[in-house]
């Protein structure tokens, strides 16, 4: 593939020898070091003892299961690796979810980590499971599950602060409904039962298209021996109730009988290899050459406090093929940079923030999104947005109308959206730039990302003004000293809550990436989204003009 976009490479405005670049880079590396250590924690799962106990029973740790099912030397893109950060749960939350290649086929893989609470369904497992289902459905990818779970986490929730009980059993089970939907959508579900899959969990193999059971390990039944004894008085044991041999030979729930775990992984690969998987999306149509600038330089572009300005073109120049970028409407609404490029040979449209969204910028964004939908080109959003511009002039210029136009275009766009939050992601700007809630296919964060309703300073400041107003109305003296303390505290709490790690710990994105991996991650996602046809929108909601 030698064809490229005709646009020339972007110039670079990065002073790599500047003090600020060096500082940004050092700060970024510090943050990456923290993340790396957290990833080590995630890898350790339930810890050495639990891993050793698994090994002694001939079981492989969950990450070895995954490594062995993948085609050698192919990538694995883990989703929400740091789920559960800053919670009472083990980092990762007891389940590994990711996208990997099995027998040349991109698959969603989700695997219980039995070293963590026996693979119990922690809140993080539920959220990641939900996300795995969503990825499989949105991108139409085979769904491969490695099941070994103690079942529901029956421990009492001990949340802090005010208690709001909005979870009820009556609403549970949605996962099973969605699995059934996947199968109807011709998305094959392949399930390897490595251990317990009981009660509700038994429906995981029950609702999968292919089941692989492992000799002497799989245990699949609606009720175990104690419950059976309670219910009917029948004496039974694990093997006769739900062993691999029983299911392979008598019940027929097990389609493939594996001698051991490696054999199960072999069978899993064989099953995927017969799925006859074809991707309807177009293959790369352009040359996928590397950017002409060093991707290492992405480390020094963003300051940790997000205060020094960033030209998003410098990010684009280090991510896209040959650094080529054809900018659209350069001189109009310049706080939103729009244009065409390619990654790994896949054509894309890019929207990147170069400041707060003005009415013209929002209008331009809405137009650009429609252009990309017209020609079936996926969109990449590079978020560094503090929101839509406020103030009399902008309200009068229709910032709400223009902003809504952009939200309409984003919401009704049907080409795949990939979002990378490189800096701030505040308020409605998050929505306009296709944040998680606006139907993108993937959301990735740089370590410098901050996601919140508004900046910590603004929140603290607004709250201070409210207090001042209350004091004035009540006619009491305003305690400046106390206010300063509250402002500082609020700022700190808000700051902490807006950090990338807090967001990713809550599974509100797909994970934090090393900025140097931006091109690779987007390249993988652009390939993944091609498991569906790339088709632009035929119509939109009514634009408020």
């Amino acid at each position, binding site marked *: 593939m030698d064809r490229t976009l005709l646009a020339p490479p972007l110039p670079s405005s990065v002073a790599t020898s500047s003090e600020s670049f060096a500082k940004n880079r050092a700060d970024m590396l510090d943050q990456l070091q923290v993340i790396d250590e957290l990833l080590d924690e995630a890898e350790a799962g339930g810890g050495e003892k639990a891993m050793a106990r698994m090994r002694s029973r001939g079981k492989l740790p969950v*990450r070895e299961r995954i490594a062995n099912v993948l085609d*050698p030397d192919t990538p*694995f893109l883990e989703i929400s690796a740091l789920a559960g950060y800053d919670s009472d749960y083990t980092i990762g939350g007891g389940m590994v979810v990711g996208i990997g290649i099995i027998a040349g086929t991109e698959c969603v893989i989700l695997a219980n980590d039995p070293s963590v609470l026996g693979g119990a369904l922690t809140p993080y497992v539920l959220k990641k499971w939900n996300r795995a289902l969503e990825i499989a459905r949105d991108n139409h990818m085979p769904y491969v599950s490695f099941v070994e779970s103690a079942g529901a986490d029956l421990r009492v929730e001990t949340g802090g602060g005010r208690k709001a009980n909005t979870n009820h059993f009556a609403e549970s089970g949605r996962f099973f409904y969605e699995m059934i939907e996947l199968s109807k959508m011709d998305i094959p579900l392949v399930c390897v039962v490595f251990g317990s899959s009981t009660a509700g969990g038994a429906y995981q193999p029950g609702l999968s298209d292919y089941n692989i059971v492992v000799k002497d390990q799989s245990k699949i039944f609606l009720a175990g021996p104690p419950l059976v004894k309670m219910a009917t008085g029948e004496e039974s044991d694990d093997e006769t109730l739900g062993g691999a041999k029983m299911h392979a030979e008598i019940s027929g729930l097990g389609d493939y009988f594996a001698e051991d775990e490696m054999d199960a992984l072999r069978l899993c690969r064989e099953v995927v290899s017969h799925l006859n998987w074809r991707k309807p999306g177009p293959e790369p149509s352009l040359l996928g050459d590397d950017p002409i600038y060093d991707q290492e330089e992405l480390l020094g572009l963003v300051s940790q406090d997000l205060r020094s300005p960033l030209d998003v073109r410098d990010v684009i120049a280090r991510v896209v093929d040959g650094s080529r970028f054809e900018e659209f409407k350069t001189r109009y609404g310049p706080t939103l940079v729009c244009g065409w490029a390619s990654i790994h040979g896949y054509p894309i449209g890019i929207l990147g923030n170069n400041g707060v969204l003005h009415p013209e910028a929002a209008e331009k964004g809405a137009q650009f999104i429609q252009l990309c939908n017209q020609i079936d080109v996926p969109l990449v959003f590079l978020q560094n947005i503090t929101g839509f511009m406020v103030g009399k002039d902008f309200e009068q210029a229709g910032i709400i109308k223009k902003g809504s136009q952009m939200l309409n275009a984003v919401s009704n766009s049907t080409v795949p959206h990939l979002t990378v939050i490189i800096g701030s992601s505040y308020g409605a700007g998050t929505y306009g730039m296709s944040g998680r809630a606006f139907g993108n296919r993937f959301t990735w964060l740089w370590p410098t990302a901050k996601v919140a309703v508004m900046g910590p300073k603004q929140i603290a400041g607004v709250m201070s003004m409210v207090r001042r107003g209350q004091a004035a109305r009540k006619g009491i003296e305003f305690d400046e000293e106390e206010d300063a303390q509250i402002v500082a505290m609020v700022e700190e709490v808000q700051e902490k809550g807006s950090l990338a790690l807090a967001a990713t710990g809550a599974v509100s994105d797909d*994970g934090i*990436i090393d900025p140097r991996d931006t091109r690779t991650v987007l390249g993988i996602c652009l390939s993944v989204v091609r498991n569906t046809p790339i088709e632009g929108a035929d119509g939109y909601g009514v634009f408020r003009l």
Partner: protein
Amino acid sequence: MTHAQVMTTPFDSVLVANRGEIARRVFATARSMGMVCVAVFTDADADAAFVREADEAIRLATGYLDGDAIIGAAKLSGAQAVHPGYGFLSENANFARSVQAAGLIWVGPTPDIIATMGDKILAKEAALAAGLPVLDSYDTESLTGESTELIRFPVLVKAAAGGGGKGMRVVQSADQLDEAIASASREADKAFGDSRVFVERYVPRARHIEIQILGDAHGNLVHLGERECSIQRRHQKIIEESPSPVVSPELRQAMGNAALALASSLSYSSTGTVEFLLDEDSLTGDSITEGGAEFFFLEVNTRLQVEHPVTEAITGLDLVREQLQVAAGQQLNFDQSSIDFLGHAIEARLYAEDPANGFLPSAGTVDVFEPAETPALRWDVGIEQGSEVGVHFDPMLGKVIAHGPTRAEAAAQLARGLERLHLGGLTTNRDFLAATLRHPQFLAGATTTDFIERVNPTPLVSPDDVVFAAVAGALWMQGRRVADLEVLPRVPSGWRNSKLPMERTSLLLEDGLGDGLGDGRDQEPMEVRYRRNRDGSFSVRNSANDNTVSNAAISNAIIHAWSAEWIDIELDGLRRGVRVSHTARVSHTGSAASFLYVQTPSTTLRFRIEPRFVVPGADTDTSTLQDGGLVSPMPGSVLEVRVNPDDEVVAGQVLLVLEAMKMEHPVPAPRDGTVSQVLVEVGQQVELGLVLVEFE
């Protein structure tokens, strides 16, 4: 017939009644002379290079010894001349006569000369008559109990019609003589159809020196110096050189003159070789004062010799060209005085055989065969990548010839060329040859015929080289897979955004050393684990020194370049360009085996890539011996079966006798036991590793 009456009979097509490297060798010259080249071949050779390269080829239904069929082939193709090569019918006077009777030109000496020289007793008489020194010999007919007391032992029992060491026995004392004569006689009968043997003085410390002669039908005769072919195993040459490190100009002249005297008495035409035994003890110490070097006539080979290229190298002549021109009746266009010897040439014969196992012939597929570009050597080979080497023919794969200004340089070049040869798929003597050429005793010129027993060169591969090769192989394989990726081809190898175990490749060192080291039967596979770093280098662990690979120290590997045949890799600071090949086979049991051939500084190592997954019940490890089964140690045919089912046998008892390369090989019981099944019968061809007998 006087010489002047010889007519020139030019011809422009030649059939080579031979196969393999010598057929290609003759074709090369004949083609350069503008001739049409005709090959004959048997079914086993149907895909061989020499058949493809010929202008025409004719199938022989019954083999290369079927003279009538070969003459028929010449008629069919219109070939005007027949070149016999060496071996097969090259020294068969009756065949030469039949060729001539059919109106074809015979490329070689006259049938009468072939007949006379082919009979060692007659040849020895001719040599005596021409004044050549010969070894005392005794007619076996006249040997009785008493007369044996007159014999000076040790002696050598030789077949009258022999050659190539077949039917030869060294006898140290009188009481062994009868048995040696009997067995040599049997072997001679089998090999040559002539059971006559004779007994000759045996010189224990000797060199094999031969003089190349060349004559035409006009009476012109020259010698082309000597070749020393003392390095032999099983009485067959494996390294030959010219000049000999011990032959002085005076001795060369003396031996050359002796050879010419005999040739002249025979009116010899075409190429020939007069073989002498040079007594090592006559070269050293007091013997020189006693009259100098002592040499004895052995025999005359009335054909082109395997080792002719060393003479070609130092004389600049093309001996096949000379043969063809002489056969056409032309005169030699030079005389003795115009022959110069330039530099030193050494030839090594590459055999499919196992030096660590008594040089037993091996067989198999030549998975890889690629000489390095440097040093520039002459490769006369019959095989190519993919060739099958069977049990039907001599297991010589080819010859490598180095020519340098000095002996030391020629030896170094040749050793290097052998070491750099990318070769694998079957056991060969490559490493043994290289070790020989590098041995101080060889370099010192101490090359008597007992060299191999005396010196026993041992090839060695350093454990560090094995580790380097394993890492290079594993990372080359990684590059192979990444290059073949259809999904996400632009994503870096094994990219992760989180932590997963390293990639793993398990490699079982199988063979390639030719020294029995690492035959894979009692070894653990070596595990190489690696992970690509962000900068493109790889972090590598291996289990070579420590079986707990997860605790092994991390090495840093940098792939500077990768291609489908090669990897330029730096491992902890040491950078090498490494030739790598990968082959995959599916066995008859349906299991797939995948092999990596990795070049080290001294040889090619073969690693079996252990599959990540094992299909339960499938026999993937073909190298494992069947439990309780006795397997064939070599390819060959079953000569004798000495046990029946239910027989109780003791360790060491001969259970059956195999024949390979016309040698008998007893197969003993490895342990005490009861035979449950005999799986072969007399006359059956067996491959290496076939189960012959099963025990209870």
